């Protein structure tokens, strides 16, 4: 069980959330300027580290806000929900 620290609602069970994968992967400013490989990288390639990962969560059953946090993918330790503007 992961207790996810929602910055707006406090710690809640993971069942209230949707997982959003790696954070910080921005939608390209001009997708048409990317070649197929770069576009495929945006579509499909995300960090999959054994260790700390900055990732996105969505409190779908609660305040319905997206936010970022850092989680250790081996221990599930979570630190510092970071800035409010997630991406």
């Amino acid at each position, binding site marked *: *069980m*992961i207790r996810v620290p929602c910055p707006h609602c406090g710690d809640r*069970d*993971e*069942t209230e959330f*949707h*997982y959003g*994968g790696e954070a910080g992967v921005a939608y390209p400013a001009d997708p048409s300027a990317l070649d*197929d*490989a770069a576009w*495929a*990288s945006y*579509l*499909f*390639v*995300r*960090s*999959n*580290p*054994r260790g700390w*990962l900055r*990732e996105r969560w969505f409190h779908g059953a609660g305040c319905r806000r997206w936010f970022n946090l850092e*989680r250790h*993918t*081996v*221990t*599930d330790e979570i630190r510092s929900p970071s800035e409010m503007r997630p991406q």
Partner: protein
Amino acid sequence: MKVSPRLPEHPDFLWADAEPRTSYDVVIVGGGGHGLATAYHLAKDHGITNVAVLEKGWLAGGNMARNTTIIRSNYLWDESAGIYEHSLKLWETLEEELGTSVLFSQRGVLNLAHNLADVREGKRRVNANQLNGLDAQWLTPEEIGKIVPILDVTDRPRHPVHGGTFQPRAGIAKHDHVAWGYARAAHALGVDIIQGCQVTGFETSGDTVVAVETTRGRIGAGRLALCAAGHSSVLADLLGVRLPTQSHPLQALVSELLEQVLDTVVMSNAVHVYVSQAHKGELVMGAGVDPQIGYGQRGSFHVIQDQMAAAVELFPVFARAHVLRTWAGIVDVTPDASPIIGRLDQWENAYVNCGWGTGGFKATPGVGSVYAATVADERAHPLAAPFALDRFTTGRLIDEHGAAAVAH
């Protein structure tokens, strides 16, 4: 008090651990079922015996030891059916091939449909399977009830059974027997099996991988074959290749030993129930994949609870069975739920086999054969070719989500 029959004994000798030598023609990273089968086929089919299998922990202690051992080939797309059916055929002769018992039991696999959309998808898959020469059937609830009397096929359950697909040649095997059988056979052909040897880096020259750096020293590599399942992306990162895989916990559980009540495998993607009764009598069940990335080999308890609710709904008789032990494997999932097999991007002599998600066990013999051929011949085996990494760039995916949300 009824006494139970013993399972077949393991052979008197399996394998002896090797000390790493300075170099090998092929270094396989990952001593699970796929790595061992690949080593075996390199030696057996291609005469390449100067091979090391590096395992960071204990042999076959990863997903090989943690899966629900379901074997089937009834996948939707031609490419998938091709490689899985190749594998199923190898399963059918594996005991003779390896000379050891693997307890492959062709008891059939049922995939249940719970609504009209499931029915449609199930029939689509059965028809594709039949035209690909596979033994697939569509069964009505009544027919299913005859095969699995303890399954409630009335309209009582919250999500009633509307029918299902059935593959009679599908079944289960005993994972330790399989892994150790490959290890024994590979060892007998001269393959070095090296446990407790973790890869920490790679030495490269131009577009060539020269050696692997390990916790037990540098090991020269003529060719490199990654077979590390959920850890593949971590290894590929060391070579500067970002794989489109994500590693998730997949939970499973067993019950106590029970007198036989279920002699086929029943899967229900819609409600995440995957159950068989193993050779000794325990119910073995797989659950859904946790959504988040996780390498901790631990899953979330609520997943197990949801799964039990669904299982008891379908099999009321299960209410009084007990969960003895739960655990999780780490499954590496690709965007199209199909594996990646082939050259590792720009590297001349490095290959990758990963992304099997929940389907890796059943593919073990097939992967061993086609991946070994790919590495030995330095070009993709025809059954492996569609699964090359570049499909994510071209967009020519092999999307098995529709027919197998969790592929098991």
